[in-house]
């Protein structure tokens, strides 16, 4: 079985996607738009959606592209109560945010979705983004940013564990609401910051919501191996899928390894190519990930070859929304189901469950402080 996710971004990943006939560019900042997309993904039994985010914006003066975005964690929280099965991995920026705030935000996302929250952690290396905070000098070398992001995840994870699962006792006999011996200071001290703890939010339903990282280079592979449950990679072909998968699994064997692919899907290969060409005429499109144009059956062939090369799943980036999302849920998914490679119904109630991850023990359980 493969795992399947979609990466939601504006009107789609192609910068001209918003001009497609079925695009809804005037609704990109309305909750109904996001709810419709995620409900469609859930209809297709996908494992989770990721939601892109950034604390910056291009300052290039262009007016022909989608501009502006909403906070990804809040989009996820807004949509989660409307869904029952699908997981949410909104993007959080480790570089400029407080791990204390994000730890409770993702824990709360896990509560409002009853166990389907997670987070995709991103580094912001641009000086433009840093100027929005004005606290420090940029650029900062990538190894330092990666180390900081690793510390950030470490703090977030310790805070999730800073309450044991059974800390709330409501013991009327002694008048105690909690057993404070089951709450723990995390006392994190690193090169970049220190955080005391414990969290103000009790341990989330999944214990540890899944953490994901997108990686293109060795420093980030190492960050993923240190910090994540899931890594998104961008192989261009089957050989590279195998090599990249081996490289990160060499750093940590049990990491879930997903391949990212931008998809333009139509009933014929020619139609998909023509559609992408039409969009390319309106705006230039480059991508870090493989750009696939073709039919759902052709994509299924490709994905299964990558699975056989060692990938655990795929995060598909729809070129244009909603077209390529519906092509995934209504074309690719049945195709994979027919080949016995994808679920026919949701088999678990939590995101960790869907991903085949156990609920982890609390690192502090049994420790006395």
């Amino acid at each position: 079985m493969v795992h399947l996710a979609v990466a939601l971004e504006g009107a789609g990943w192609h910068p001209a996607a918003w001009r497609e006939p079925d695009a809804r560019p005037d609704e990109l900042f309305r909750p109904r738009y996001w709810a419709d997309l995620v409900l469609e993904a859930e209809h297709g039994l996908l494992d989770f959606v990721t939601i892109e985010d950034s604390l910056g914006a291009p300052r290039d003066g262009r007016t022909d592209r989608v501009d502006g975005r909403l906070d990804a964690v809040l989009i996820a929280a807004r949509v989660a109560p409307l869904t029952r099965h699908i997981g949410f991995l909104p993007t959080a920026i480790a570089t400029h945010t407080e791990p204390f705030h994000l730890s409770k935000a993702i824990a709360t996302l896990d509560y409002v979705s009853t166990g389907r929250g997670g987070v995709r952690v991103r580094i912001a290396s641009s000086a433009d983004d840093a100027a929005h905070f004005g606290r420090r000098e940029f650029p900062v070398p990538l190894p330092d940013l990666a180390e900081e992001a690793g510390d950030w995840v470490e703090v977030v994870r310790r805070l999730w564990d800073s309450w044991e699962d059974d800390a709330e006792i409501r013991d009327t006999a002694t008048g105690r609401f909690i057993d404070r011996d089951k709450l723990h200071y995390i006392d994190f001290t690193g090169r970049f910051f220190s955080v005391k703890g414990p969290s103000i939010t009790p341990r989330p339903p999944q214990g540890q919501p899944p953490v994901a990282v997108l990686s293109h280079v060795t420093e980030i592979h190492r960050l993923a191996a240190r910090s994540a449950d899931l890594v998104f990679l961008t192989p261009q072909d089957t050989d590279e899928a195998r090599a990249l998968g081996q490289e990160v699994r060499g750093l940590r064997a049990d990491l879930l390894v997903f391949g990212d692919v931008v998809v333009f899907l139509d009933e014929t290969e020619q139609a998909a190519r023509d559609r992408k060409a039409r969009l390319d005429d309106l705006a230039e499109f480059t991508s870090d990930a493989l750009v696939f144009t073709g039919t759902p059956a052709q994509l299924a062939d490709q994905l299964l070859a990558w699975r056989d090369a060692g990938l655990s799943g795929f995060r598909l980036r729809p070129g244009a929304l909603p077209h390529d999302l519906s092509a995934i849920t209504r074309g690719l998914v049945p195709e994979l189901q027919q080949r016995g490679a994808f679920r026919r119904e949701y088999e678990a109630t939590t995101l960790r469950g869907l991903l085949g991850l156990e609920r982890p023990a609390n690192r502090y359980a049994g420790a006395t402080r």
Partner: protein
Amino acid sequence: MKQIHLAAHFPGVNNTTVWSDPEAGSHIEFSSFTHLARTAERAKFDFFFLAEGLRLREHAGKIYDLDVVGRPDTFTVLAALAAVTDRLGLTGTINSTFNEPYEVARQFASLDHLSEGRAGWNVVTSWDAFTGENFRRGGYLPEEQRYQRAKLFLQTAFELFDSWGADDIAADKASGVFLRNARAGAFEHHDAQFDIAGRFNVPRGPQGRPVILQAGDSDEGREFAAATADAIFTRHGTLEAGQKFYADVKRRLPAYGREPHQLLVLPAATFVLGDTDAEAEELANVVRYQQVSGQTAIKFLEQVWNRDLSGYDPEGPLPEVEPAVGAEAVAKGRAQTRMYRDPVATVRQWRELAEAKNLSIRDLVVEVSGRQTFVGSPETVAEAINTYVQEDASDGFILVPHVTPGGLDPFADKVVPLLQERGVFRADYSGTTLREHLGIDR
């Protein structure tokens, strides 16, 4: 007749909440938040209100365990509540000390979009290094700078909200013009606290800016609210005290070019209802003693005495020892302790009070910390609330039920219809945004 504004506070981590009540539910499961919000919306309330805490409270070096402990993230819960309500305003406390304006502005602008115009922000300040230990910048702010930072924080956030015009997005497929204004979001801000520039990346929300709430009892707090807030809330005392506060804050508005209706006074209030006034009084007495257990009473005194009083009997007389002045505070992370800046004087007053009324330790704590503002039959409570509003002691109330999440249900079912009958509270929403509910300008 003035129209009453009502809001519902999801009770937080203080001893108002009776967690031992058999009806008490979770303080963290989303179903509890949904229940209270839906009750408030069914009753046509203006908004839901969520407080925030950024460090668990401590007492004598240990996490305080006698009240509710733990709460969710403000923004995340409010965004999720937008999915299960349609009209109710969604307001929450966000600290201006341990956040950055760029991030908070984009969260509020996002919440305003995701709730289609229902976001509100209670701006609070903090100064203590104790809370600062949870944040990457560590440390804290000298107390005298906290209002300065709050003012500059809010000013900066307003600049960011205003950096997009309402019509900056064209999204015109045919011409290929997405953005009408190439400079949408451009900002530059330099002051004593913030030195930032670039592009704000969230388009203008339906309300332009979220509604701004402030809690203010101090002179500085009142002035800050008069300058910037849409609503001010406070703790609630007698009718006369309320009228004095009301007149005072409204009097400050002209200096900022604002009119009295532009700042609503909304005190927090608790309530206990009974079929008759006598029954309600009896019930209120039970609730007060549920809120203040013997252990809670001793801990409460320890905050003021600033020393270990665990050897004292809560049912006995007040301790004869004097408070330890100047020692490191026993209680940390509590705003409450700031109310007793002169512990020696406080203790003297309490001793006189206890003597005059023959009060035990627990009785005294119930007396000085009790919060039942409105006690009586639904008719009595409706009448009292209306009197406070019509006689200019407030513009309405933020109600704090003492049982989670069902504590507001009897108010919604029994008191709201009486206010509606009197024509002083809406029978249905006439607008869709929080600003419209509050009758304040966009």
